[in-house]
């Protein structure tokens, strides 16, 4: 450990002759860029699994209790028909995998790791060994989660929210080791997240390049920094809660079981005290990514840099005191519900500020419709829908009706797919050249973006209608209810959309793999961007820069500045003698 940190801090002399073996370079690497790639590969692989589970759920909802094509071998008892317990398992694991093993590894894991050191001008993370450990512990968590699919009784089936006592007593779901492994895996993942977040926070505070003041940091670094603080404070609550749940299941404690004097609502308080900051852990990095990409391709400074930073900080603070809106009809004191309504309405304000600032950034720009930009624009637009639909749930009387219906499913997917996943795609298209030293294919990129955007809306927008019609989430067969019969055609349309959405990811994966091997070599700064990562070679070597790290002279978004002849002005370019040094 001490040796690795020493190298990270004593750079230039060793940078040239740093010969590490295959295992130290590609597997147990302490290089933040390699760890970023590992997180990215983990997230993308799990994305396929999570997507397949979603399709299984969708098939059942559109054509209930009919054989699922291609799954006859797996569900041989029923000839390919999904049974209710398996259905519960499918949606539980879809959400668990997408949230914990796709969005978090890709956004916080991969791009947090990749961006923070490169964009603040550091040679690596503050604790490279801890960083490596953080990935491998996350990989262990993923492995444990995957093993759950193969144990008798099947995987966890109590929803990703694992409400006790359903999750606390094996007889209630019939799941034994599946739910145990679910708890253990998330416990292990909590440890990984703890290591990662401490590392991110320390790195941002201590390892910024000369001249990189806090208010010269790129917004994506701010976003990752704030996300890391949320991770540090929120994940341990979940880690403790799943440990308590496991004790209830194994050791006969009664934290959440009323039969032994426990309190089911305690689980909900703990879970959502983690769970609501978690939503912002999923979306803040994507907000940062959009804030990073919009100025580059609008060739304009970000509109209201300080407002962007302070609104993210406000979101982070408020995210701790809104969680009760998940529990309006749970039996929690309704007076408390009213207090949570107030805070929930308030947290919409910083999100609104960010949206208007993104629009302000586009105003008067010279917009280049590159693939990262298209995905970032889609993020902004879809996030608006996800944000606005949240206001319905914030209003307590409306939530009485909307709670636990497809309206909430629509809302969360507009935020997490429309927001986080489009943010992830934007980030991949934007940083791929730096990450792998090759450009991604534009034609395949368009073949991915446009159908994805179209089918995304076809899949998730009608869910609002289903929810308003009253369709409950997590039901196995809508046709069992008379009041839902008349809107079944929407379920069919949604499933067709979901199949299209899944197929639209094929060009992406083809493009990703093909470009890794055969993509055109990437120049140092293909997008003519200002931030520091674009001053390092593509891909950057171990320790990122040669003899010296760059010095920072200005903020990250000085596009089209009158100070420069070109329409960009890198953070590290020294000012002309006598010229003003620009803002910040």
């Amino acid at each position, binding site marked *: 450990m001490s040796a690795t940190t020493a190298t990270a801090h004593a750079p230039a002399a060793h940078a040239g002759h740093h010969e590490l073996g295959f295992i130290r370079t590609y597997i147990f690497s302490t290089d933040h860029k390699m760890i970023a790639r590992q997180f990215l590969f983990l997230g993308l692989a799990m994305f396929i699994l999570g997507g397949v589970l979603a399709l299984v759920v969708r098939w059942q909802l559109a054509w209930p209790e009919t054989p699922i094509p291609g799954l006859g071998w797996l569900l041989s008892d029923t000839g390919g028909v999904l*049974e*209710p317990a398996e259905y*519960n398992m499918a949606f539980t694991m879809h959400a668990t995998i997408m949230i914990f093993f796709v969005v978090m590894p890709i956004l916080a894991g991969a791009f947090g790791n990749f961006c923070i050191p490169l964009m603040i001008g550091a040679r690596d993370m503050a604790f490279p060994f801890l960083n490596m450990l953080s990935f491998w512990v996350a990989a262990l968590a993923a492995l444990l989660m995957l093993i759950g699919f193969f144990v008798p009784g099947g995987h966890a089936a109590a929803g990703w929210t694992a*409400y006790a*006592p*359903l999750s606390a*007593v094996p*007889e*209630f779901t*019939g799941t034994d080791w599946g739910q145990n492994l679910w708890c253990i895996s998330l416990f292990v993942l909590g440890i990984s997240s703890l290591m990662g977040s401490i590392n991110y926070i320390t790195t941002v505070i201590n390892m910024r390049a000369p001249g990189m003041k806090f208010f010269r940091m790129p917004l994506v670094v701010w976003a990752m920094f704030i996300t890391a603080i949320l991770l540090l404070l929120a994940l341990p609550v979940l880690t403790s809660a799943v440990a308590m749940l496991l004790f209830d299941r194994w050791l006969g404690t009664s934290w959440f079981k*009323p039969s032994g004097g426990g*309190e*089911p609502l305690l689980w909900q308080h703990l879970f959502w005290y983690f769970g609501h900051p978690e939503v912002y852990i999923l979306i803040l990095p994507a907000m940062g990514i959009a804030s990073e990409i919009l100025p580059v391709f*609008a060739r*304009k*400074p970000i*509109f*209201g840099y*300080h407002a962007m930073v302070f609104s993210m900080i406000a979101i982070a603070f408020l995210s701790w005191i809104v969680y009760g809106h998940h529990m309006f*009809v*749970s*039996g929690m004191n*309704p*007076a408390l519900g*009213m207090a949570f309504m107030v805070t929930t*309405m*308030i947290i*919409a304000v910083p999100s609104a*500020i960010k*949206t*208007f600032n993104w*629009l*302000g950034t*586009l105003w008067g*720009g*010279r*917009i280049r*419709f590159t693939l990262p930009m298209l995905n970032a624009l889609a993020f902004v*637009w879809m996030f*608006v*829908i996800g944000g*606005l639909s949240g206001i*319905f749930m914030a*209003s307590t*009387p*409306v939530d*009485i*009706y909307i709670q*636990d*219906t497809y309206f909430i499913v629509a809302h969360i997917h507009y935020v997490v797919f429309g927001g986080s996943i489009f943010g992830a795609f934007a980030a991949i298209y934007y940083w791929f050249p730096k990450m792998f030293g090759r450009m991604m294919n534009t034609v395949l990129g368009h073949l991915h973006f446009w159908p994805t955007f179209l089918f995304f809306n076809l899949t998730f927008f009608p869910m609002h209608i289903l929810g*308003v*019609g*009253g369709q409950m989430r997590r*039901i196995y067969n809508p046709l*069992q*209810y*008379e*009041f839902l019969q008349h809107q079944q055609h929407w379920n069919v349309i949604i499933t067709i959309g979901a199949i299209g959405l899944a197929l639209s990811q094929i060009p992406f994966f083809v493009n990703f793999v093909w470009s890794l091997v055969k993509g055109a070599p990437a120049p140092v700064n293909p997008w003519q961007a200002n931030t520091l990562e674009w001053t390092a070679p593509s891909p950057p070597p171990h320790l990122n820069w040669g003899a010296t790290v760059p010095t920072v002279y200005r903020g990250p978004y000085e596009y*089209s500045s009158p100070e420069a002849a070109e*329409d960009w002005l890198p953070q590290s370019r020294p000012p002309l003698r006598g010229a003003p040094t620009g803002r910040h």
Partner: protein
Amino acid sequence: MLSWWLPENVSTFGQDVDWMFHLIYYITAAVFVLVTVTFLSFIALYRDRPGRRARFTHGNTAVEIVWTVVPALILVILTFLSVPAWSKIKMTMPPTDTVIQVTAKQFNWQVTYPGPDGRFGTEDDKTFIDEMHVPVGKPVRVVLRSQDVIHSFFVPQFRLKQDAVPGREISAWFEVTRPGKYELPCAELCGFGHSGMRGWIYAHPAEEYARWVAENVGAGAAPAAEPKTDAAAGGPTPAATQEGGKATR
């Protein structure tokens, strides 16, 4: 607009919920249209064209204050407008003599009436499975309990939802405005039989309800309902066919 998507409302407070829903719907729709028009026209107007340089600006404090304060005001107003309906539905309990106990279990609603003595927990209580009869035009108080996991008492057409939590007794109320037969699904995941856990609420005009009570609960003459101890054996509805529940305690 959109009202044809909401199921028909038949409860007194349902119109308050629907009014709030529609208000938010119109406000968010207007905001969405405004943002979308701005967004799309900026994209079209400011696309990259030769010979033009992007506007070099870092923001505008006045504009930023406006777009902070205006949404904040709208949201504060929405909060205040939400308070009366919420306190009416969840924080007040209108006086009523119609009290019904609903005990949820995997995967049925056990609906208990107090019987001729008017008290719960006595020998003459009458329990029905997945079937509830209520009067129209009178507040009905439902005392919700659960004997295993969390369930949620959801009557879409009453705009009412309230979780039933094991170990707790939670009261909810409603007043139906029109006679009819209304679905009562469970809205909280409660196990493999969650889907299909559903009861029916029959709302009768006052006289008809009195007759139903006299015949089935009150007068003590041969009750049509099965005794509550047979609850787990399975009732006539589809929900009850799924192994008749798995009460473990």
